[in-house]
């Protein structure tokens, strides 16, 4: 935290070396966040650049009251969502097939941990509004109220979308594991 403060102050005063240090420290993580929300690499890079520019321009506003990583993560998530919105990817509709799904309370999946690459691949296949809500709630810790404000949807829609997203991912993951094991056999 001590050194981080020095780097941030260096960035504010326009020291290019401090800027590069800050970038190097957070670029990998933040790019991963953008990729998590935006499947297309080019658009993810656009959001990444916009977000970093915003970070540098707004460093003066950071009051050191929270973790810097939390602060910067929020900016990247917001920027990713803005990008999706501008691309009109966040379409809030529920397909007839999804409507016929029964949504059990428990997810029929029994694993110790997720395989990261497989999860990423499956999330890419999910509708964007499902994956966004799932990432925001489960991974990035947003509340339904915050999600509803950011995505401009009712809270109830956020809850139901989340439930459907969990179940969709769970079922897709289970299916993928079964297919993988059957090929091995």
């Amino acid at each position, binding site marked *: 935290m001590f050194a981080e403060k020095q780097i941030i102050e260096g960035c504010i005063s326009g020291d290019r070396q401090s800027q590069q240090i800050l970038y190097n420290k957070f670029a990998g993580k933040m790019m991963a966040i953008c990729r998590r929300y935006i499947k297309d690499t080019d658009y993810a890079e656009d959001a990444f650049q916009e977000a970093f520019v915003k970070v540098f321009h707004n460093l003066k506003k950071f009051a050191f009251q929270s973790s810097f990583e939390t602060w910067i993560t929020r900016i990247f998530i917001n920027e990713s969502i803005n990008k999706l919105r501008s691309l009109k990817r966040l379409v809030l509709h529920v397909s007839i097939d999804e409507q016929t799904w029964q949504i059990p309370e428990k997810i029929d999946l029994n*694993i110790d941990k997720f395989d990261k690459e497989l999860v990423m691949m499956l999330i890419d296949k999910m509708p964007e509004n499902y994956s966004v809500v799932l990432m925001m*709630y489960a991974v990035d810790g947003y509340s339904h109220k915050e999600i509803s404000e950011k995505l401009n949807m009712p809270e109830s829609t956020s809850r139901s979308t989340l439930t459907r997203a969990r179940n969709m991912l769970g079922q897709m993951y289970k299916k993928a594991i079964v297919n993988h094991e059957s090929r091995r056999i």
Partner: protein
Amino acid sequence: MSQEEFDRKLKQTFEDEYYPPAEHLWNNIDKRINQPKKKYFWWWIAPAALIAVSALMYYFIPKSEQTNSITAVQPTTSYNNNTTKTANQNNSPATINNNAEQVEMSGNTNNNESLVHSTANYQRNTNSTNTNQSENNTANTERNHNSNNVGITVITQENVSNNSNLEQSFTFSNLDIVRYPYVNLLDVFLAPKARYNDFVANIPLGVSLNNKPKNNKNKLNSRYLNFGFGSTIAFNKVEVDNSLQPMVHFHLWDKKDKLTRNGRGFNSYITYTHKFSKYFGVESGIGYTLRTENIQMNEVSDSIAFRSGNKIVGYQRIMLLAISKNNQGGYDTTPYNAVQAFTILADNKYNLLQIPIKAFGEIPLSKKLTLTLDAGIAFSYLYTKKMLHLNIVDEKIYEEKNKSLFSLALSSKLALYTKFNDFGEIGLYTGIAKYQKTLGVANNQYQLKMNDLYFGIGFRRAF
């Protein structure tokens, strides 16, 4: 599994998520965040324009000088012959010679003696000169500013790997070989060696711990180049020795403060500041001031001084009667009271070259604002090509040419600077100069004491 467990495991999956961004992204970001900002000068336009316009007005509006040693004659308000006429004081006849009409004079004297009539010779000298002057002042060019970046080890993007020691590599307290100017020594000494060893083991190729930072003496921005220009208010005051009083008309003696008057001018400077600590230093350089003395005196007294040698022995009132024949066969009389006038209109200019040696101090008020104060002495050289003053004994205009004076001055300046992109700092200043030596005028009849008040726009740049 439950939904909460699902969320927890999903979160765990993305905890150490890392995706290296493409190389060109940093270049794009760097260009956007470091592009030169638009320089908004507008808040400086008003004071700068005011100073520029006042300087232009001063130098390009022609001035005229006039000297006048005429003794004007004005009518009395009452006389027992009841014939009064008004006369325009400034248009009174240039000469009255002995061939004028018979003149009867009467008046009161200090010692009750009857008047002996006398004629006065009037001489009007009118000189008009137009003065035009312009001054140029140029600012110096800048150099690049190198702010403190001592001792920072940069791990570039190419060196980064998906490595759990990434966090440690950015904790400067681990790097106890490379010294940082703002690192608390305790952090260096108390850092656990195990973490340091881990860091060393994982240090990417190409980054050497043995690279010591260059010995940069200027890490505190200890050297500054300063320059500025602006307006001057020139305060002038006359000092007359009391021994002259018997020789000076009492009315002029009472009004001797009007022998000079404040003026205005222009000032500029270029100096070098060397700081030997964070807040204090010394400053020296060169400064130029053009200051004026705008004398406007037009005093009259109906007491005419009578002198023996230079010493005044008495005062008298003198009345003149102009008698002329009228058409009815009689005489008309026009009375005039003689007055003595002390008039001078002059705009003297003084050029001042100064070499200051001052103590300097600065107080950072915020990240962008700095208050500076300097005070000390200045070796001054004053020069004037021509100056006019009133000789208070013979009551005539006295002209002196090519006068110069070496003096010591007490000098002080207060400035408020703000950071100005990459150029340096720009600010407003105000200052005073108090010249210790006085300038003898009218053949050293009396002394001119000078003080200046400056204000203007200043620039400073660290190098």
